């Protein structure tokens, strides 16, 4: 339900920001015939996700962050999930999920402030991280950058919740670590034009 809402917002944004409507008739025509089908290998390239995460964390937090492929430790009871929807030639979502302690550590790096709990500022920071991850990831593929809009981030925090997504067209799901903290980033694509 949340994901559907986020995607609808992204589709609306992609329209309002002129992604499907060019400056003049020629560009409009060009936009209408544009397709990502021939770039699907680029869109689903897992290296783009890793590079995006490393770039965002290096530039915005000043930390080195790398993909982790080992066994994932048992999850903390409280977690934070941020979702940014994609709309346009690609529909889907970028999902960030971490335990509360990693979310707090990320917000501390971003703001220089100390936090003892997942408050509104921490959630705001995690939403922005997810927004930048989504934007950086889509900028790796030229057609995607120009023809795919982003929704405003939605952030959920709490205990004992699950996110369910019906079979996507493709899914990238990677775990990353920095300073001993871990988090997951998932790219879900449920439609590619």
């Amino acid at each position, binding site marked *: 339900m949340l994901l559907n809402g986020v995607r609808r917002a992204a589709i609306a944004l992609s329209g309002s920001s002129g992604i499907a409507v060019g400056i003049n008739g020629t560009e409009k025509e060009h936009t209408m015939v544009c397709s990502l089908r021939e770039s699907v290998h680029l869109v689903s390239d897992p290296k783009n996700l890793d590079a995006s995460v490393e770039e965002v964390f290096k530039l915005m937090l000043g930390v080195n962050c790398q993909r982790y492929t080992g066994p994932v430790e048992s999850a903390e009871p409280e977690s934070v999930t941020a979702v940014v929807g994609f709309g346009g030639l690609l529909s889907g979502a970028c999902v960030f999920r971490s335990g509360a302690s990693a979310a707090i550590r990320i917000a501390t790096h971003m703001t220089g402030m100390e936090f003892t709990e997942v408050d509104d500022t921490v959630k705001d920071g995690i939403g922005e991280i997810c927004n930048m991850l989504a*934007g950086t990831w889509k900028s790796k593929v030229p057609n995607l950058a120009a023809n795919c809009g982003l929704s405003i981030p939605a952030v959920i925090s709490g205990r004992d919740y699950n996110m369910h997504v019906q079979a996507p067209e493709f899914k990238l799901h990677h775990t990353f670590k920095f300073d001993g903290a871990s988090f997951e980033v998932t790219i879900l694509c449920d439609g590619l034009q």
Partner: protein
Amino acid sequence: MSEIRTLIVDDSSVMRKIVERSLRQAGLESLVVFEAGSGVEGLDLLKIQHVDLILSDINMPSMDGLEFLRQLRGQNLAPGVPVVMITTESSEEHVKQAIQSGAQGYIRKPFTVDQVRERVLPLLNAA
């Protein structure tokens, strides 16, 4: 450099702080910052405050950054004040739209302090 009165428009309070910190690190130490959480708030603030520089996000609820920019120019608020868009949207189309709407600069998030310095300081020197 003398006091620079700056309006930062972003729905994220964390991003507003990061932008402010980056401006200071870029050399704008004498900064007086006004914050707005939306384009509407930004327009209201400009009716009562004079600023020297405006930085605005694009993806915002209720009124996005491009609409804020159009209304800013349409209502002739802050005439001659440079506007820099700071956003995750990085395609040529988005940059073109921002410039056509009246922006003088464009910074893609995530950004470095050097990028802020290179794209903001020349606008202040030229103003």
